[in-house]
């Protein structure tokens, strides 16, 4: 992941971008907790809402794969479908950990 490139796309310096990326990790962990709660409560609408939050932030920072995955989860949740969410969450967790390592 090229943080300099991502930062320059947003016309920001690297330091500011890393601060935002760190904040993204924290907020996304919170959103993922919400998704887990929604999964255990069988509440797809809440899962969609938290996935929507991840999608927006990831998209704004240029984390496209995470944004795409969050969008898939959001749309599924809005359709009332939590199928495959365990796998989705595993993938999301891996990507988030990968980001965290780089920070």
């Amino acid at each position, binding site marked *: 992941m090229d943080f300099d490139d991502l930062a320059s796309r947003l016309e920001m310096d690297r330091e500011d971008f890393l601060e935002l990326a760190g904040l993204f990790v924290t*907020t996304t962990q919170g959103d993922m907790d919400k998704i887990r709660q929604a999964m255990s409560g069988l509440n797809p609408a809440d899962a969609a809402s938290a996935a929507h939050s991840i999608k927006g932030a990831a998209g704004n920072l240029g984390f496209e794969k995470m944004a795409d995955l969050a969008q898939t989860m959001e749309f599924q949740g809005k359709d009332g479908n939590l199928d495959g969410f365990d796998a989705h969450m595993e993938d999301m967790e891996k990507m988030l950990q990968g980001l965290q390592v780089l920070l």
Partner: protein
Amino acid sequence: MGKNIQPYSVLVVDDNRVNLKLIEKSLSKEGYQIHTADTGPDARASALENRPDLILLDIEMPGESGFEVIKKLKDNAATNAIPVIFLTGVSDVDAKLKGFDLGAVDYITKPFHPQEVLARVRIHLKLSIATNSLIQSQAGKLRQVTEAQAAMLPQPDEFPGARFGVYYKALEAAGGDFYDILNISENITGYFVADSSGHDIETSYMTASVKALLAQNCTPVYSPLESMKMINDVLVEILPPGKYLTACYMHINRSTMQATIIQAGHPPVVCLPVKGEPYLVLTEGDILGMFPDAGFGKVSVNISRGDRFFIYSDGLVESADNKVTWTSGADSLLPVYNSLRQVPFKDVPEAMISQLFGNGCHPEDDVVLLCVEV
């Protein structure tokens, strides 16, 4: 930045702190003061407290949605003029239409680029500044018109020999009612009350023209009827199509003790004799400024010292709400004139308005009420 320069402020509302921080960093670098909120109720509280110049508002938030926030902001007089740009998903056409319908000025699709946010904030602040400037400019011009009109209305202290009291209230900056007092000679005074069609800026220019015409034509050389006919002939030439006045001109000669009343489609003068019951001085006449060959009503009344006359505009006696026209309304007020007999003539107009409109009712139109004592 100088100490006195207030930066433009933007309230950013998003339930995701990353998005808030991203916008905050981008806009604050450009000199904007940023307030943030992550829920709808907090956003509304911040808008009320900080009165930002612009609001960037996420639509999809848990709890109170962005739509509800816009609606509540627009329903509140303290926040309804703040431009709102909403943040929404690229494919969500319904959300965009609903946002506009609720009063938002623009939208930004997510994911957004900070430079796009900056560009849209700039353009909408410029529009807001231009609009506010236009409003201030128009308000300033209307204030000037109001002041100019007020300066044209003579006050009782300026004409002690005319022995009159007046109440004048324009509902809008450019009032349609107008009155003037004319010192024709030492013992002859002219009293003129008119109501022009319309309440716009054009009307205020008409007021100035009529005042000039009165000064030119209400002289000892002409009879009151001749004065009004000459004024009518000029107005017919200069007034725009569809503009006219209803007017009443009362000419009091305190030497011959005679009052002459010229009517041009105006509500009837009320005479309150010093000894006797009040009555309407009825006569009919064409309106002023519409017809070249207009015919005006004329009544002459022998007067006594202490007699009072009331000249007024239709706003005193008419009510569109209650379907009262001056033909019926004028008559119904006669007991009120009688009840104020003991009040000094200068104070009668105010007292009468208090009596008629004091208990929470307000005139539906401009009102001028002149009380003249012989």
